[in-house]
C-alpha cells in the first residue's frame, strides 16, 4: 500500500466557467492601477543612481505605478521589502516564513493560514510544523494569477484564536508603533508587516475581528468582507461559519484593489456567492447623502478607553462635515449577547475543524505513540497550545448530546436575532460607525494570562461578524501616541459603500500610517 499522500494534487479545480471569470479578473489588473504620487516615496541615491524605495511609506498603488512606469523592476521592489525584513523583522517578528518570490507585480504577504503550494503553512501552530501544502488556496491562486509574488507568510495566533499574536506557537509579533506592545490579532503578523514597511499589503483572516482589530492597533485599513464573498478554500479553518479572508493595507484604495483580486464566487467553496456588483475603486471625497448610524451600545460599551472614544467622536463629527446624515441608533441585544454567542459558535466549530490534526497524515506526530489512543492524545496534547485546547474543550462540551440545543442551537438562534437587529438599523442608516477596538495596542503579556480580558478586545467587532456583515476599519487618529481604529459596518455586499465612505474619511482625517518612531 502506498503512503498516504494526495495523488490527485489539485483537490478541487475551479471549473471552466470559473476560470473564465478569473481571467477577466486578471485582465482588469493587467490594465494597471491608476497612480497618484502625492508623497515622495522614491529617492534617487545620488552615487549609484539606484532607486531607494521607502517601503514604510509606499502604498501598493504607488508601487504598481513605479512598476508600470519601469521606474523600478519587480525584482528591485521585492528586494526592497526583503531588505526591510532583514532590517526590522528581528524586532517585529511579523513573518514566520520569508519566501521572497520574484515577480513582476506588487508583492504581498499571506497570513500563515492561507494555503500556499510548496510554502510552509502552519497557522501559527506546532501541530502543523513542517507541513508543506501540495495545493494553493483559491485566494493564493487569485493573487498568483494577478501576478503578485509572495514575500512570505505572516505570524498569527494559533489557528487564528487570539487578539494579540501571543498565542502563536512561534512567539509573538510586535507592534511597529511600539514594540513593547502587541500588533493585535489574530492577523497581527500581517498588520505588523504592513505597518512596519515589510510588505506593501497583506491578507489576513477575520473570524471575530482578526483583521479589523490588528488593522486598528497598527494604524492600517482592514476589511472583513461579507461572509461568502471571498473563498475559504485552502484557508485553514477555525470557525467555518465566520471565517473570512480580507486585505490589510495602508490605504482604502489599496484595500479595494486587493479585495477585487480575491473576491468572487468559487466552485470549490459552496458558501461563496457572485458579487452583486463589480468592486469600485473609491475616489469620492465626500459623504453626501450617506446616512451614518451611531449604535449607542457599540460606542458607549464599558471598557472603551476615553482616548479611543474621543478620536471616534472627532471622526463622526468629520463625517457630518463631509455631508453625512448622522444619527443615533441601537443594537441592544447584539452587543449584550454577541460575545457569549460567539464563544459558543466559534469553539464548537473549531472543536470539529481541529479534529483532523491527529498525527496520522501530516503535521506533527508525537514520538511517544504506543497505540492509537496514545497517538491521538499525545499528538494533540503536545501539538496544540493552550488556547486551541481551551476552545476544543468548550466546543466539544457545547456540541455534546444533551447540550447541543442549550448551547450551539441557542447560539444560532441568537445569531438570527443579531442579524435582524442589524437589518432593522439598516432600514434607517446606510452605515454604522463605532470604535473598532475598545483600546489602543496593549502591552505584550498584559492580557496573555487572562483569556476573558483578551476576548473583550473583540467586543465591538463580533456582533456584525455574527451577522455575516462586512466591516472596514480605518485609522482615525492617535491616543497616547498609538493608533485608534474606526469601524464602519454596512449591510451585506456593501463593500463599495464602505470603501467610498472609508476613502472620504481617510482623506479628511489625513492619518499618517508610518509609525512615528520610524519616520525618517
Amino acid at each position, binding site marked *: 500500500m502506498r503512503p*498516504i499522500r494526495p495523488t490527485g494534487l489539485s483537490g478541487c479545480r475551479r471549473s471552466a466557467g470559473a476560470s473564465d471569470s478569473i481571467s477577466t479578473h486578471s485582465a482588469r489588473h493587467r490594465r494597471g492601477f491608476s497612480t497618484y504620487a502625492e508623497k515622495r516615496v522614491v529617492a534617487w541615491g545620488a552615487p549609484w543612481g539606484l532607486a531607494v524605495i521607502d517601503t514604510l511609506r509606499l502604498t501598493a498603488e504607488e508601487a504598481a505605478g513605479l512598476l508600470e512606469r519601469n521606474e523600478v523592476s519587480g525584482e528591485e521592489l521585492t528586494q526592497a521589502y526583503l531588505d526591510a525584513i532583514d532590517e526590522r523583522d528581528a524586532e517585529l517578528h511579523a513573518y514566520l516564513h520569508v519566501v521572497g518570490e520574484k515577480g513582476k507585480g506588487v508583492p504581498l504577504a499571506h497570513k500563515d493560514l492561507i494555503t500556499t503550494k510548496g510554502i510552509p503553512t502552519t497557522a501559527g501552530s506546532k501541530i502543523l510544523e513542517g507541513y508543506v501544502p501540495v495545493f494553493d488556496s483559491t485566494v493564493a491562486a487569485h493573487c498568483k494569477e494577478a501576478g503578485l509574488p509572495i514575500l512570505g507568510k505572516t505570524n498569527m495566533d494559533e489557528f487564528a484564536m487570539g487578539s494579540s499574536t501571543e498565542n502563536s506557537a512561534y512567539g509573538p509579533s510586535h507592534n511597529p508603533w511600539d514594540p513593547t506592545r502587541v500588533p493585535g490579532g489574530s492577523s497581527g503578523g500581517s498588520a505588523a508587516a504592513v505597518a512596519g514597511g515589510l510588505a506593501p499589503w497583506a491578507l489576513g483572516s477575520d473570524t471575530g475581528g482578526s483583521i479589523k482589530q490588528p488593522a486598528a492597533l497598527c494604524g492600517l485599513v482592514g476589511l472583513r468582507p461579507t461572509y461568502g464573498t471571498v473563498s475559504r478554500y485552502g484557508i485553514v479553518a477555525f470557525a467555518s461559519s465566520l471565517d473570512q479572508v480580507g486585505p490589510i493595507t495602508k490605504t482604502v484604495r489599496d484595500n479595494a484593489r486587493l479585495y477585487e483580486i480575491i473576491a468572487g464566487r468559487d466552485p470549490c467553496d459552496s458558501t461563496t456567492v457572485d458579487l452583486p456588483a463589480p468592486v469600485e475603486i473609491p475616489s469620492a471625497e465626500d459623504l453626501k447623502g450617506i446616512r451614518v448610524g451611531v449604535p449607542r451600545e457599540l460606542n458607549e460599551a464599558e471598557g472603551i478607553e476615553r482616548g479611543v472614544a474621543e478620536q471616534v467622536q472627532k471622526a463622526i463629527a468629520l463625517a457630518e462635515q463631509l455631508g453625512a446624515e448622522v444619527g443615533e441608533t441601537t443594537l441592544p441585544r447584539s452587543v449584550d449577547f454577541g460575545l457569549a454567542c460567539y464563544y459558543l459558535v466559534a469553539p464548537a466549530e473549531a472543536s470539529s475543524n481541529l479534529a483532523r490534526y491527529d498525527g*496520522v497524515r501530516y503535521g506533527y506526530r508525537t514520538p511517544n505513540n504506543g497505540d492509537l489512543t496514545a497517538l491521538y492524545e499525545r499528538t494533540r496534547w503536545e501539538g496544540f497550545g493552550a488556547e486551541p485546547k481551551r476552545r476544543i474543550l468548550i466546543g466539544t462540551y457545547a456540541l455534546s448530546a444533551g447540550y447541543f440545543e442549550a448551547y450551539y442551537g441557542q447560539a444560532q438562534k441568537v445569531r438570527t436575532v443579531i442579524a435582524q437587529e442589524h437589518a432593522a438599523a439598516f432600514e434607517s442608516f446606510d452605515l454604522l460607525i463605532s470604535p473598532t477596538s475598545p483600546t489602543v495596542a496593549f502591552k505584550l503579556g498584559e492580557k496573555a494570562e487572562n483569556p476573558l480580558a483578551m476576548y473583550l478586545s473583540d467586543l465591538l467587532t463580533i456582533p456584525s461578524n455574527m451577522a455575516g456583515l462586512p466591516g472596514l476599519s480605518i485609522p482615525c487618529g492617535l491616543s497616547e501616541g498609538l493608533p485608534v481604529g474606526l469601524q464602519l459596518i454596512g449591510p451585506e455586499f456593501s463593500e463599495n459603500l464602505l470603501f467610498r465612505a472609508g476613502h472620504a474619511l481617510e482623506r479628511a482625517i489625513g492619518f499618517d500610517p508610518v509609525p512615528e518612531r520610524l519616520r525618517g
Partner: protein
Amino acid sequence: MAELEPVIGLEIHVQLKTRTKMFCRCENIWGDDGNTRTCPICLAHPGTLPVPNKKAIEWTVKLGVALGCEIAPRALFHRKHYWYPDLPKGYQISQYDVPLCSAGRFVLPTEEGDRAIGIVRAHLEEDAAKTVHVGGVGGRIAGAEHSLVDFNRGGTPLVEIVTEPDVRSPEEARRFLQLLRQTVVELGISDAEMEKGSLRCDANVSLREPGAEFRTKTELKNMNSFKFVADGIAAELARQRAVYESGGEITQDTLHYDPATGRVAPLRSKEYADDYRYFPEPDLVPVEPPQEMIEAARRELGELPGARIRLLEAEIGFELASGLVTSGRDDLYARVPGDRRVVANVLMNQFAASGVDPANVNAEELGKLIEAREAIPRAAFADALAASGNGEFSADRYLAEAAISDASELDPVIERVLEANEAQVASFKAGKEGVLGYLVGQVMRETGGKANPKVVNERLREKLRA
C-alpha cells in the same frame, strides 16, 4: 410466557457507483493499489472544503422515489464526529435530522401476501476509508501488529437506508435485502455486491411478546452475505431467547457475527462511540433537489421488482418467481421459449451456476438447448449453458459437437465397462433392467461425461441383448 416475537430493523449501506467521490473529484474506483485515488480534500488537508456530487444527490432522490419516500425540499448535511484513522477529518459528512429521503414504504411480496416494510429514511453520506489490520486473526483489530489505511474508498458516496422495526424473521430480512438489492441494481446506481462491501447490512434485533412494548435491542454489524444476515440474526435471536429463558436481561450492545463459529460476540466498544456531536455542516449549503429532478425520477421509474414477482407468481409459483426477479433473470425468463416451469428451473439452477450474464444470451437458442437437455449429459449441458453467453452460440451446433455420439468411439468404452461389471451384466440378463442406469453412469464416467447418454443407452441395450 407467550412465544416471543422477533423485532428486526435493518440499516443498509449502499455505495453509489458515481464517476467521482462524494465531495471531491477523485475517481470513485477502488481495489487498485492502496492510496492511489486521493487528493487534499479526501485526505482532509487543512483548508480543504467539500463540494457535493450532484449525481449522488440525483441518485439518492431516485432511490428515495423507488422506496416510496418523501423527498426533502431542503435537506441538510451534518457532521458526525468520531475518532478513527479511517475518518481523516475526524468527522463524517452525513445527514441527521433532515435527510434527503424519509417516510417511505417498501413492499415485500411473500407467499402469504404483501408485507410493507416502513423506510424511516434514506440519506446520503461519505464512506470511510478502509483499514487493514495486519497480523491479527481474521483481519480484525484485536491482536493486530499494525494497521494500514487505504483512502481510495474514503469519500465514496454512500446511501444509508434505515427500515422501521417491521421485519419479523431472519428469512424475511434476507428476502427484503435481496429485493432491495435488486431494486438498487436496476436503478443503475450501485453494483450492490455484499462480498465486495458495496452493499452492507447491519441489523437491530430484539424480542418481545407479540404486540407488547419493544424490549432492549442489540446491533449486529457488517454481515457480508445474504446468508450471514439471516444466520447472524437467527443466532442473535437464539441467544436472546436463551437469556430471557434463564431469567436474564439483554443489554444494548454492538455485536459481531462470526460465520465460522456461528456465534455473536461484542465488538470493541471504543470503535463506536455514542456521542457523535452532530451539528449542521457549515461548509455546505442546504441541498434543494429541484422539482424536475424528483419528477424525472418518478417518470423514469420502471416496474419495481416486487410487482414483477407478483406477475410471475401465477405462472411458476412464488419461489421461482421471487428467485428469478431477485437474481435479475426474469427478463431472460420472459424471452426464453419453452415450458415455463422447466425454463424457470433451469434458469434458477444450472444456468445460475454457469455465471453467464443473462443480458448476453440469445434466448431462442437457450430455449432449444433447454428443450434438448435430457438428450445430453449433465456436464455437456452445463458446458453448453456456460457457452450460451457467447455471441454466436448455436444450440444445434453445440449439441452436435459436444456429445460423443459416434458408436465407433463409444464401443470400446462400452466393452470395457461390460467386462469390468460382470455381476451387473448378469443381473440385467436375469431381468433386472434397472442396472442399466448404473452401466450408463459408468460409461459416462469413463468418457468424462462427454458421451451422448441417449446413444450410450441404445448401444448398451444392443450389446447386452447380443
